[in-house]
């Protein structure tokens, strides 16, 4: 009697899991249709910028203007990163009307790491974890009120996280 019960509940669980999976797939399909359309309208993925090999080229491709160093851009990065595969870096700023924040690592094969689009109502604070091939300058770009500001810091890397 007990075994039947167990078997029954196991089958029931399987069926429920199946239903869950179907529901997930259903949910997954809907946004798949919607999100790229939305993204394309608002902020297209900057494919070209991610291929650039120098800070200057990234800034030119991404923004088409020059960045001005600002002490209102605060970057929190380690002095020494023991593992270049995972370097925690965060940025915050007191600048108003921030529309985007980008992270650049000068010595990486592709300099641009990430660009974050900040709509009105979202705070200009972002934390993420990046890969660094070797010791390099890390630059943060903050686009605010149509202008571009930056902050840089050298992060020493003991073991590189890009070349393997």
């Amino acid at each position, binding site marked *: 009697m007990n075994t039947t019960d167990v078997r029954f509940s196991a089958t029931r669980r399987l069926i429920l899991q199946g239903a869950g999976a179907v529901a997930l797939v259903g*949910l997954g399909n809907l946004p798949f249709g919607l999100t790229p359309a939305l993204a394309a309208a608002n902020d297209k993925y900057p494919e070209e910028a991610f291929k650039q090999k120098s800070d200057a080229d990234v800034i030119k491709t991404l923004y088409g203007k020059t960045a001005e160093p600002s002490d209102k851009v605060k970057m929190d990065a380690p002095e020494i990163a023991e593992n270049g595969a995972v370097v925690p870096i965060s940025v915050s700023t007191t600048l108003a009307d921030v529309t985007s924040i980008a992270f650049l690592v000068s010595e990486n094969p592709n300099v641009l790491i990430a660009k974050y689009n900040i709509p009105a109502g979202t705070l200009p604070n972002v*934390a993420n974890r990046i890969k660094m091939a070797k010791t390099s300058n890390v630059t943060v770009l903050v686009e605010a009120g149509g202008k571009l500001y930056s902050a840089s810091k050298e992060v020493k890397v003991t073991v590189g*996280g890009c070349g393997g």
Partner: protein
Amino acid sequence: MASTIRVRASSNGDITEVQALIQHPMDSGFVKNAKGETIPAHFIQQLTFEHDGKNVFTADWGGGISKDPYVKFAFKGAKKGDELKISWVDNKGATDTTTAKIQ
């Protein structure tokens, strides 16, 4: 399959702090395997967060983001119990979506 996205969104007054952790190899296309073959690029390109049908945060990523990426940000205008929709798409066209309740 379980979702690749883990999210914690916590409301603190007017500000909602969001932390997301995603399971993804984030291969840059520059790393070689043990046989000396290049591991092809495979990374998330875009990650979006929506609240109430409105985009609150978009991440454009390259292969320089660490494996199993983590991101943290905060936004205004949401309250406890609201839903946050998170989706990503990678360079091979794979995608995943989840929703999280703001706590």
